[in-house]
């Protein structure tokens, strides 16, 4: 309030000066000076992060003041030789631009929009890449199976020895069975889950980031991970444990493999934009694709948290194949419904239409 009163007083006293000013450019400046100073005061407060100290009145006036100062700058550049005023305006408009076009929502606000529709919309936006990656995924599992079925030596090319442990070609069904069940008494489940999450999240971020190389490494990473799955599937099916193994994987795999699939698709999306930018300039095509893919990636990290919890706890504690399938199946249905059938809340859709209209 006090700012506005002061502002009025200033303009009253300035009135005399405006009439007296000898130069047209000085009159121009004196007429607008109060507005500029008010803008500067608001901007200074906001730069210091004291948003609460800015009154509602000032906050509403900010965009208008910014535009006035900006147009004042373009006039001053053309008509005024007062270097100090032009320099002052240049800095003022620049500072105001950073404030006016700074991040508008808080992180919490952004996350709300993310869950209310932003996430599923981003996944649908890269739908073509998801479909392509899904085809690659199926092919990779089949390839893993076929390679090992053709020559068991391939098994160790796909699965490292320390990772394989007792799960090697020629192991008896009892040993293989023991790797799937009765692990509930193992200590340190939560530590195991946290480690899983950390590793998986890092791999998925890598898959996304490598999309920068035209998406090829993203796809290769997907192929490598899924070929491993195919090889292990072959191993367990040889011991007649196909269903049990599928359940063991499904409990967290429907979430985890889905997440890895999405991160590879996000990487591929960027890679495609870089290789084939279409009619737009390369840089803006890459930026648009990157921003879409980034939203997907935030979701991927969240999915991996859930997957790690399922893998660390649910898989060890639920010891029947049926129970595991029902958990895994439920998660799969949940994800598919959320991504492909959920158009976003009405509030979110209205907001988005508003934003696009402004653009």
């Amino acid at each position, binding site marked *: 309030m006090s700012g506005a009163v002061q502002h009025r007083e200033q303009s009253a006293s300035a009135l005399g000066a405006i009439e*007296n000013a*000898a*130069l047209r*450019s000085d009159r121009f*400046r*004196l007429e607008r*000076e109060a507005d*500029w*100073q008010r803008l*500067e005061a608001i901007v200074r407060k*906001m730069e210091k*992060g004291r948003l609460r100290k800015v009154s509602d009145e000032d906050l509403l006036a900010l965009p208008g003041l910014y535009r006035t100062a900006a*147009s004042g700058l*373009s006039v001053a550049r*053309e*008509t005024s*030789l*007062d*270097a*100090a*005023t032009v*320099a*002052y305006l*240049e*800095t003022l*408009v*620049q*500072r105001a631009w*950073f*404030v006016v*076009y*700074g*991040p*508008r929502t808080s*992180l919490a606000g*952004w996350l709300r929009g993310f869950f209310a529709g932003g996430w599923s919309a981003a996944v649908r936006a890269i739908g073509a890449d998801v479909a392509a990656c899904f085809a690659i995924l199926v092919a990779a599992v089949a390839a893993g199976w076929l390679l090992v079925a053709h020559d068991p030596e391939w098994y160790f090319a796909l699965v490292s020895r320390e990772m394989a442990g007792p799960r090697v070609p020629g192991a008896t069904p009892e040993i293989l069975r023991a790797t799937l069940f009765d692990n509930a008494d193992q*200590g*340190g489940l*939560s*530590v195991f*889950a*946290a480690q899983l*999450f*950390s590793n998986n*999240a*890092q791999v998925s971020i*890598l898959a996304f*980031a490598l999309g*920068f190389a035209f998406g090829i490494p993203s796809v290769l990473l997907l192929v490598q991970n899924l070929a491993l799955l195919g090889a292990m599937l072959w191993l367990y099916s040889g011991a007649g444990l196909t269903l049990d193994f599928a359940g063991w994987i499904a409990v967290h795999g429907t979430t985890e493999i889905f997440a890895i699939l999405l991160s590879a698709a996000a990487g591929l999306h960027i890679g495609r934009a870089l290789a084939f930018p279409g009619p737009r300039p390369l*840089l*803006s095509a*890459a*930026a*648009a694709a*990157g*921003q*879409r*893919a*980034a939203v997907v990636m*935030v979701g991927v990290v969240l999915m991996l948290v859930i997957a790690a919890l399922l893998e660390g706890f649910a898989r060890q504690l639920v010891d029947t194949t049926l129970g595991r399938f029902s958990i895994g199946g439920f998660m799969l249905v949940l994800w598919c419904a959320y991504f492909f059938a959920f158009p976003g809340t009405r509030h979110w859709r209205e907001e988005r239409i508003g934003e696009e209209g402004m653009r």
Partner: protein
Amino acid sequence: MAGKERKTRRPRKEAPGLGRTLLTPEGISLSIAISSRGARFGALLLDLLFIGLLITALSVAFLFMAGGAASIERTLSSGTASGHALQFLIVVWLVVLFLFRNAYFLFFELGPRGATPGKRINGIRIAARDGGRLTPEMVIARNLLRDIELFLPIVFVASAGAESGLAWLAATAWFLIFMLFPLFNRDGLRAGDVIAGSWVVQAPRPKLAKALSLEAPASVERAATMPEGPKYRFSEDELAVYGEYELQALERVLRDTRAKSIEPVYHTISEKIGRNDGWGDERAFLEAYYTQLRARLEAGLRMGVRKADKNT
């Protein structure tokens, strides 16, 4: 004071190749300066230092709580209450490590200042390349790529020795492409910036604007309020000798309150125009000259005639 700040500012803005023009959504061109690569490298080192310090401090606190590394193994497998507490600590620890690696930059760059502590110290911040709003999506995208640009190469080069042969060389070259990416484009974009549509610019400095605050140049009011008109009146010929460049030099002299240079400037001008009636009253003389010269040049400006300096 004003003169001093202007001096420190000059090399920044006029450093070759850093100035850029940004078109805001309103169609106003804004002159900004992108950050130098050195400032960004310095900011990165500072941030890494902060992360390192934080992790070390937390690790020490963690070990202290757990009662030394040797006993961890024993307590963990004991299955007692303290074992569970330790498990919880390790989980927190793993999550914190992940967050430091991935969320430190994210957290700070999403804030209203758009800069990590290291960037802020170096006076730089991130902005949208198209002049629009800096969105969370941009910040996330540019920081997800930091992994292959920075952390992965370091881990990779450290973990595998050069003796691993050709594959190591190829991988090193591949990572170097990302690490050195900012050196090979005009705007110093790193791969993350390309993907995100962002860039790193010099943050505007509030202090500067204060120094150039809108004090009315004394000349205007004094000239206008004098009933008989300005004390010194200059003819068209006397004003025609100088252009915009000299006008702005004169403005700087007049704004400099220390006034050391007033006298030599007065001598130069009075010699050039062949008038010496301002002797002993140099400031008033120069202010009058400044006002009238500016009036003349601005009138020309409105008619589309520019006189850049005395030689044109």
